[in-house]
């Protein structure tokens, strides 16, 4: 078998495997386009006979998706801003020095990264209710998400700072820059891409966050799309085409960002988690 033929065969097998793996995603998009009766047909159709494009508008209107997505956007953006402002400097210092304190700090941060949100929500909820934070539920969720996701961000961004050559910063200091000046003019611009990718990963995580929002935000006007989807799926629901249309509207922007930035996201992810 020649090299080209082997490559073609491998590519073909890879595409088939990817197709099988991504079938659930395909099923979501297809179900959203089916009519109420076609959805329950036996055998199921793998291509909608008459695509029902109007389902999207109907679900958007009837479920008030604009409001849900807006809340998701506020929560995710707030969490990303808070995490970035606090986390970048922390990652920088943890990347620049190595001594016992840095090791302890890193160890504590890695430990915090592993605490399951559904277990931490009990003390956070009780504490927040005592502090009166539940009156600002979205802010409370932003803070809780920031505490949950910042360790992950710090680990990723630290890997980026490790790749910035020390000599450049030193040269800037010799040239008369202050530490602040060197940090903002030399180090940050060099680490910009890594920070951006990590921030996008955090954004995607926060955009789909569920446990904290479900537990803290009682007011339906302030709930994000994940909680909206949860309340859409009652125990005996049969509106699967509408639910899948909701899911489609919810995840398509995330998937689009991911496919566009795939290479960077994958490399940023692997540099932090293993290296």
């Amino acid at each position, binding site marked *: 078998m020649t090299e080209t033929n082997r490559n073609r065969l*491998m*590519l073909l097998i*890879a595409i088939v*495997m990817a197709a099988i*793996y991504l079938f*659930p995603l395909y099923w979501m998009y297809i*179900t959203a386009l089916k009519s109420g009766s076609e959805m329950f047909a036996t*055998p*199921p159709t793998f291509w909608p006979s008459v695509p029902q494009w109007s389902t999207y508008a109907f679900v958007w209107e009837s479920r008030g998706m604009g409001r849900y997505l807006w809340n998701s956007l506020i929560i995710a953006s707030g969490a990303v801003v808070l995490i970035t402002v606090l986390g970048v*400097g922390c990652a920088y*210092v943890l990347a*620049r*020095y*190595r001594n016992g304190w840095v090791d302890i*700090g890193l160890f*504590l*941060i890695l430990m*915090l990264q*592993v*605490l399951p949100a*559904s*277990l*931490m*929500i*009990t*003390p*956070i909820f*009780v504490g927040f209710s*005592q502090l009166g934070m539940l009156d600002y539920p979205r802010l409370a969720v932003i803070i*809780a998400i*920031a*505490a949950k996701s*910042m*360790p992950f961000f710090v680990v990723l961004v630290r890997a980026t700072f490790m790749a910035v050559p*020390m000599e450049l*910063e*030193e040269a800037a200091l010799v040239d008369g820059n202050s*530490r602040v000046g060197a*940090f903002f003019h030399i180090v940050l611009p060099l680490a910009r891409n890594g920070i951006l990718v990590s921030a996008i990963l955090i954004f995607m995580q926060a955009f*789909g966050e*569920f446990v904290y929002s*479900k537990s803290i935000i009682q007011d339906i006007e302030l709930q994000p799309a994940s909680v909206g989807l*949860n309340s859409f*799926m009652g*125990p005996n629901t049969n509106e699967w085409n509408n639910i*899948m249309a909701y899911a489609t509207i*919810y995840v398509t922007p*995330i*998937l689009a960002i*991911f*496919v566009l930035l*795939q*290479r960077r*996201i*994958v490399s940023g*992810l*692997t540099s932090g*988690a*293993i*290296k």
Partner: protein
Amino acid sequence: MPHSPSSGPSGRLLPAGERLNRMADAPSSISSRKGLPAAQAPGNPVRDVGGPIKRLLSSVRDGRGFDIVLVAFPLGFLFLMAGLPLLYNVLMSFQEVDMFSLGTLMRPFVGLKNYRDLFAQPETLPILANTAIFVAGSIAGQFLIGFGLALFFWVNFPGASWLRGLFLVSWVMPGLVVGAIWNWILSGDFGVLNFILREGGVISGNIFWRSDPNYSLYAVILANIWLGTAFNMILLSVGLSGIPADLYEAAELDGANAWQRFWTITLPMMRSTIGAIIALGLIFTLQQFDLFAAITSGGPNNSSNVTQYWAWEQSFRQYAFAKGATISVLMIIFVMIASVVYVRSTRHEVRG
């Protein structure tokens, strides 16, 4: 990926960091420079005209203070929002907490009563067993499928890395959406999975994945395997690409076949990566909550309930906050043990 302490970035960074400190500290105040201790001696007035506040500001702008400020705020924030809740959780697990005492800090202490009550409950042991099955099943599935895919994509062909990255969509999607999709795929009468299994001759009658107590836990495991396989595969690919190619060339010259090469080179070389990934899988699996909320809600009759969902259910469905805290404390201790394993197996990489 072995790192000897004297080579690589770690050996280079240490002296560089010290050099940086000295340089950075030098302009901030003369008295702080080593070798001039006389300037700090009592009776010898400090020649710094700015006073302590100005010195502090200049240190923040141009010295050690800069680093301390950068680290103090995030660590303080993490302590307040993650460390304190952790301690508060332990406190609550020894207290009696109800809706009326929710607002106070000093509630009646009950000693180990919450823990005793927990283990006296009939559903505790089945739920712990479910958690073990969920963790073992999910990790086994994610790891084996992920490893198989990683080995396949390791053979470099055009488009391999792009297609491999595409698998990660399962990981970036919100857990609740993944749960919703699988809820529909696993539906009893009209689910497409039952249709495929029927056509394939695997089953003769429909399996009621979500409502049959024998299957409900496996329904969630199935969805969780799908969700986590891609992440395992990507990390395993990174590990595979770190194995030096000449090892395989040498083995091939010695006449080792593919199977022998896998057992004698690939697996031993991947040992630390595999350890890290399994520990990471344990951590992620114990964090899985959304799939339970979206597929079975722990039901029917707790047959698919696991501790991380049960703890939330106790606090936010039954309003038994003390019980929720008690379950949390036990699980968090367990997760922390797992994370020590993870940190240890990535130790040289973490230290760079």
